């Protein structure tokens, strides 16, 4: 429990984390506000707000990457040539425990961020129905799983640039996985396209998945990546 609190304090002390929180809250709400009138003119959009929340996940991605990469960077004049990870492992020598508490603290933050952001975003949608609020747990789960995916990738690379590039590119307006889905139906099982199903109703993809199936597919990806990340983290020098 003390290790968990420590991780939480480390995270909230990072300026990048607060920047990610700002992005995660402001981006989807502002986009929904901009898109609302266009959607109304076209006779409504069942996924208004939710599509925008799929872009807001970039806040969760940054959080997931920074939670791990901040342990390894030596940039900035205050770093003193050392890396945070050596101190962290001195304080919590069990790598399993360090990783679990770190991921738990990060997931707590992302879940809170997703809950706040999706509530605010739905407020900007005119008259959201009860079924819309029923999709909110899907949004929260999608954000947390994406952040864990980002952490898993960063554990492998120890540097934030590659995972950030890959994941932000794939959050763009025309994502690479979506384009791949035009080539092969198998691409519908990529973690992001499968995870979407948890809260987006109209999906233009060759394979239809139920929300629960989509969530399970995404969870399987995350579990595999985190397992690989943990094995590497346990086996190598800090």
């Amino acid at each position, binding site marked *: 429990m003390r290790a968990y609190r420590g991780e939480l304090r480390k995270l909230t002390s990072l300026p990048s984390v607060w920047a990610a929180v700002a992005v995660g809250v402001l981006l989807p709400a502002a986009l929904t506000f901009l898109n609302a009138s266009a959607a109304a003119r076209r006779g409504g959009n069942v996924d208004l707000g939710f599509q925008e929340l799929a872009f807001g996940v970039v806040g969760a991605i940054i959080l997931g990457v920074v939670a791990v990469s901040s342990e390894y960077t030596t940039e900035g004049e205050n770093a003193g040539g050392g890396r945070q990870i050596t101190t962290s492992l001195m304080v919590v020598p069990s790598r399993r425990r360090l990783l679990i508490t770190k991921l738990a603290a990060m997931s707590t933050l992302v879940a809170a961020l997703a809950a706040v952001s999706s509530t605010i975003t739905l407020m900007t949608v005119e008259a959201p129905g009860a079924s819309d609020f029923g999709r909110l747990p899907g949004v929260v789960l999608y954000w947390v799983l994406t952040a864990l995916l980002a952490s898993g990738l960063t554990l492998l690379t120890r540097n934030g640039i590659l995972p950030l590039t890959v994941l932000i590119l794939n959050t763009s307006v025309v994502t690479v996985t979506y384009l791949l889905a*035009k080539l092969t139906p198998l691409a519908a099982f990529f973690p992001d396209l499968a995870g979407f199903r948890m809260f987006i109703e109209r999906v233009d993809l060759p394979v239809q998945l139920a929300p629960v199936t989509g969530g399970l597919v995404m969870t399987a990806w995350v579990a595999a990546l985190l397992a690989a990340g943990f094995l590497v983290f346990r086996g190598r020098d800090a």
Partner: protein
Amino acid sequence: MTGGRAIRAETRKLLSLPATYFTLLGTLGVSAILSTAFSRQDVSPVGHTQAGFIVLGVIAVTSEYSGGQIHRTLTAMPRRITQHLAKIAALLIVAAPAAVLTVLAGGPRSAVVGASAYLTLTTILSATVATVLRWSVPAVAGLLGYYFIAGPLLRDRAPFAAYLPDAASHDLRSLGGSAVVLGWVLVAVGISAATFHRRDA
């Protein structure tokens, strides 16, 4: 004289980074694969490629700040404006041929000049942003967030979006877009040079 030697030194430093080759080869490979895979779909040609050049611009600058290289650099070349401009020049020397190669490998071949100019200018712009921020993760996150999320979304909704630095990526044949980017680059280099000149290293 000093300027020429500074540029040579900066070019050698940039070419000594494994990350430079990793980024450029990765960009070249991914660009070739994507263009083959998506040749039948209407996808902006430099759309995904520019990510690699953004990362290149950021790495060229932030590599100075991991491990205190910047102190050695400024001991060897205390004139900061010269040093900064030499770094930009070195980046131009490395990025321009890489951009031409990448465009030839991935297309569009009909707009080689416009596309390579755009990619090179975007590299410089990213380097100036990284100079002001000094940390690679915020610089990469901010730039990619702008180029891949905010920029494309603004394009359809705001009339002023045609004057933003990413607008040219969608209209490579007319050089007007590249002129807009050039304007942004000149302003950005001015700001980054002034910041670098005034602040503690």
